[in-house]
């Protein structure tokens, strides 16, 4: 479905001669005989090289999982599985407890998304439209955290997680250990606030005069207008949890039954598991992200540039 839609879109977008905007090389020089030949050669080379470099490894990711253990480590390597073993996928799935790893990752990712949407949207709305006393100071302090690279803080963050100040809770090993820190994402708040700022205050004032509460205004006016930016924040929020490695390794590692994410789970199993099973497991872990990308590719690519740069 997604593939079809993508090709249809690509076909529609293919520029008609003469309508393309001018780039580095002019359309006219491409229409000359020499230009046409050079263009054909470059285009073919680009397609072949890119396919080899980017699809090549992914091709092996999916096909080598189908090989038997002997075939995977055979020299010279086989280009495709001579005796396909779909059983390796089943075996890897059982041996690594992939069902649980998948469930954990989905649970962490969507839980984190829910927390981010509720708290970050509410905070951005408050900072943009309700403008409380000291709101600007709080916003500045939030933005200042963007200057601190996330990985250098893992130690104090972990120690704080083992014993939350005031509450004296140990959250290590609980899903909250992944969910709550994702809320402290200044970039989300920045993106949302910037978008909310662009909503004309006339709408808000009109609703206020009609007696709408701030929550009602958020729900009936701000949220419906803000669908695109909320889409961007959601997509990148899900992907970030799915791809994170160091933090889940610290807070969800080594429990039985396993609480690890896919990413940490397959890494942890990698040593002492036959190579073909590891490749099969890696391929399975990659499937949801690839499908997700093919479905949302336009939003993801638009989000990359519209939201500026995602660190």
């Amino acid at each position, binding site marked *: 479905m997604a593939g079809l839609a993508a090709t249809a879109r690509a076909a529609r977008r293919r520029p008609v001669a003469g309508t393309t905007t001018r780039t580095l090389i002019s359309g006219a020089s491409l229409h000359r005989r020499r230009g046409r030949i050079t263009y054909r050669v470059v285009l073919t080379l680009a397609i072949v090289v890119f396919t080899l470099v980017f699809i090549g490894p992914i091709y092996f990711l999916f096909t080598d999982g189908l090989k038997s253990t002997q075939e995977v480590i055979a020299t010279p*390597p086989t280009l495709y599985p001579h005796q396909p073993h779909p059983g390796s996928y089943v075996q890897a799935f059982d041996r690594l407890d992939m069902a649980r790893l998948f469930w954990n990752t989905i649970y962490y990712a969507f839980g984190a998304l829910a927390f981010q949407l509720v708290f970050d949207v509410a905070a951005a709305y408050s900072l943009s439209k309700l403008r409380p006393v000291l709101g600007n100071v709080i916003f500045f302090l939030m933005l200042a955290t963007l200057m601190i690279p996330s990985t250098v803080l893992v130690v104090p963050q972990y120690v704080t997680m083992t014993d939350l100040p005031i509450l004296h809770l140990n959250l290590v090993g609980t899903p909250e250990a992944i969910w709550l820190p994702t809320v402290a994402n200044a970039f989300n708040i920045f993106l949302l606030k910037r978008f909310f700022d662009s909503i004309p205050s006339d709408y808000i004032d009109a609703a206020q005069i009609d007696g709408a*509460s701030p929550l009602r205004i958020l729900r009936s006016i701000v949220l419906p207008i803000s669908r695109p930016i909320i889409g961007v924040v959601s997509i990148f929020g899900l992907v970030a949890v799915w791809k994170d490695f160091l933090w889940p390794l610290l807070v969800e590692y080594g429990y039985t039954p396993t609480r690890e994410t896919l990413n940490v789970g397959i890494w942890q199993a990698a040593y002492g598991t036959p190579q073909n099973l590891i490749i099969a497991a890696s391929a399975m872990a990659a499937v949801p992200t690839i499908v997700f990308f093919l479905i949302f590719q336009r939003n993801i690519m638009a989000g990359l540039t519209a939201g500026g*740069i995602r660190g």
Partner: protein
Amino acid sequence: MAGVATLRKPKAESRATRTGAAGRLGPKIRRNLSAHGFLIGAVICFTFFSWYPIIREFIMSFQKAVYGGGYAWAGWSNYVRIFRDPTFWQAWRNTLEFTLLALVFGYAAPFFVALLLNELRHARGYLRVLVYLPVMLPPASALLLFAYFYNPQYGLFDDILRILHLPTSQWVFQPGSGFVSVAMVSVVIASTWMNMGAATLIYLAALQNIPGELYEAAELDGAGLWRRIRHITIPQTRLILLMLLLLQIVATMQMFVESFVLTNQGGGVGDNTLSVVMLIYQYAFAMSGASNYNSASALGVMLMLVLAAFSGGFLWLTRERG
């Protein structure tokens, strides 16, 4: 959740405040209360998981664990201890090596790929998807795949070298600690493959915003291809180029997962791919028996200060003049 709770309250209280002594002050306080109610969830999370850990990292770096629990003041001793650790210097050197190599491979490549994609009139959508696809893979998947390719016994890369009758390599486990070591280059190749898609697409968007008339005019003036790139493309995308340069350096200085997964968390032969963040991890969580959060914090503070100084200096040097 917090928002809902506070929002219901003002409605119920409204009649009480209107008749109460609060008088004119009431609505203002009420508005502020509900505004802070919307903020509170995020502020609590920032406090516990961002602001407090930043301060705490500095505090912890000057403390030491006391036998039987608790912490005591330790002065500069954590810093002195890690300065005396030869691995500390090794890790900084490796991180610098990784950052520079990643610049050579990973900074120029996306720009030229984007330039090429912008010139093509066909298959652009397909090529864009290809470049970005590895970015979406879970890092462990991509890196375990590369670890398999790099395997000295049965990996694909050595198989190709054998077929071509070239000397084989140990790749990430190749000993040697020259500044451009085979092991580090292997890590950089995997890292670049995984990450270059995002930068490519950002450049591509920037290139599409360059007005075509500029190229038109330059060509009329007789500027060749190279001069058009130099005098139009690069100046027009200068801001994005600088921004991504800064972000890439800050990101690569924090390299962790690449070397961690590729070398089975060992940091290569003789630690030749051990990065600073890996050393923080080792100090804090992996040192046999006596894990030491305080030395790890001291190293974290140093990395934080180095990156902050670098970012500040970079922004100051490249600031818009006039």
